[in-house]
């Protein structure tokens, strides 16, 4: 199932963080999301697991393995094929949105790439 609805930013960054060769556990995702968003998106554990639950239910991510060591439990997540498709669809959508906005700005002000002050 490919989600065509607009994706919320934390979800977008969680999926983006999981685009990699090796799976990530919870804290790894929090770190990766913060880094990928240049520090803008700081996930709290409670919120992130609500998102992970939703993404697991929708089949966009899967649990690759789990590690239970010393009274701790880490589950490692990867992107599923559906997750990859959903992220690709979102990227295409964001690109097309950005293009529309950029071309309108260009038409109106003959300028792109920043805000021009008169």
């Amino acid at each position, binding site marked *: 199932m490919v989600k065509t609805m607009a994706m919320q930013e934390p979800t977008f960054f969680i999926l983006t963080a999981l685009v990699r060769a090796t799976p990530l*556990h*919870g*804290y790894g995702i*929090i770190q990766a999301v913060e880094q990928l968003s240049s520090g803008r998106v700081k996930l*709290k*554990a*409670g*919120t*992130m*697991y*609500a998102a992970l*639950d939703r993404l*697991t*239910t929708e089949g966009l991510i*899967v*649990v*690759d*393995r*789990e*590690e*239970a060591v010393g*009274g*701790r*439990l*880490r*589950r*490692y997540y*990867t992107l599923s094929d559906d997750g990859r498709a959903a992220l690709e669809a979102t990227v295409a959508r964001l690109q097309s949105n950005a293009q529309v906005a950029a071309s309108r700005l260009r038409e109106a002000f003959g300028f792109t790439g920043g805000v021009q002050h008169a």
Partner: protein
Amino acid sequence: MPDLERSYRRLLRAYPGFYRRERGLEILTTLLDAAEPGQVRPSRGDAAHLLVNGLRYRFAPPTWIGRLATGLVAIWAAVVLSGAGALAVWALANPEEPDLAAFSDELVGRPASSAYELPGGNLLDMAYAYRTYGEFQDFAIEGWDGGRPAPMGQSRFYEQVTDTPTVLADAHQHLTSAGWRTGPLSQGGANSQADVNSAHGVFWASRDGVLLRVSGYDNQTGVTVGAYPIEPSGVLAGAITGFAIGLLVVWQAMTWMAHRIARTPRPARRLILLLGLPALIACGVNTLDNVLSMIPDPGSANVLFAADHMYPLANQIANPLAASVIALALIGILSLIAGAARVGRLRPARAAASTGEVAES
């Protein structure tokens, strides 16, 4: 156990048990992984997010159908339990039925032709049926604001009274001078239909927690004297408490059930939906019936008496069809849930690290 871990474990109790079993240790691990070195207590942001998300798992059902079902069932149960709350307060207050037979006969100046007891012995029977006796249907236009009657007690009829208006006026004067608080004596419509419901001259009086209703009937050829206790106070508060507790408990239980159903394999889910549908319809229809039967028709002179707050429960006893359908569906669904395999959505893809959860077949 370090303080930080203990604090996080305490915060995780905001989540329902089923979720803690699925995720609790994993979330705790992540929280501890993310903790600053030397941190001894959770940050305010972490604590708030854990509480909010925990409560969300307790009170926000996962799917639209889960939300619809939760709303219908929780509101139905809350309305019925508001009746139980009202009943509890009423039963505790235990208003005493006045015995004014002799007093009433003296007031009218003759022995009663007949008398009937309102069914006050069984409170739920009373709450269900008292309006059919008709004596309370014009309360709002009978000019009485000195306390409302509990519909339990005796009504006495005096037939073939030749001069009803005089009897009523004398009774009114007698009661006033005997220290009763009396309401205005309305003359009523002498030409209206001969009907117990439309009184031909009526007044209310009260003393020592007893209410009297003295009225003429049958085109002013008869007199009725009804004696009732004043309705107990706090019945509305009992109803509201019952409603709130019912809503809180049943909403939470239904949310749990919705989460649990979301974790059963698809064929079981379909069966559950099939079983649940008649119950959901019964909940909706019965709630409408309960509320609409209770609330007085705006075009009438009816008012909402404390006894009416017991109606939603009384209605279940008098007409048990809806409650039976709902109970049967609940039993069926719970046994399906108990028998169905649990879908292991958090089951690792790699077999080596199985959690022991059962996969969807």
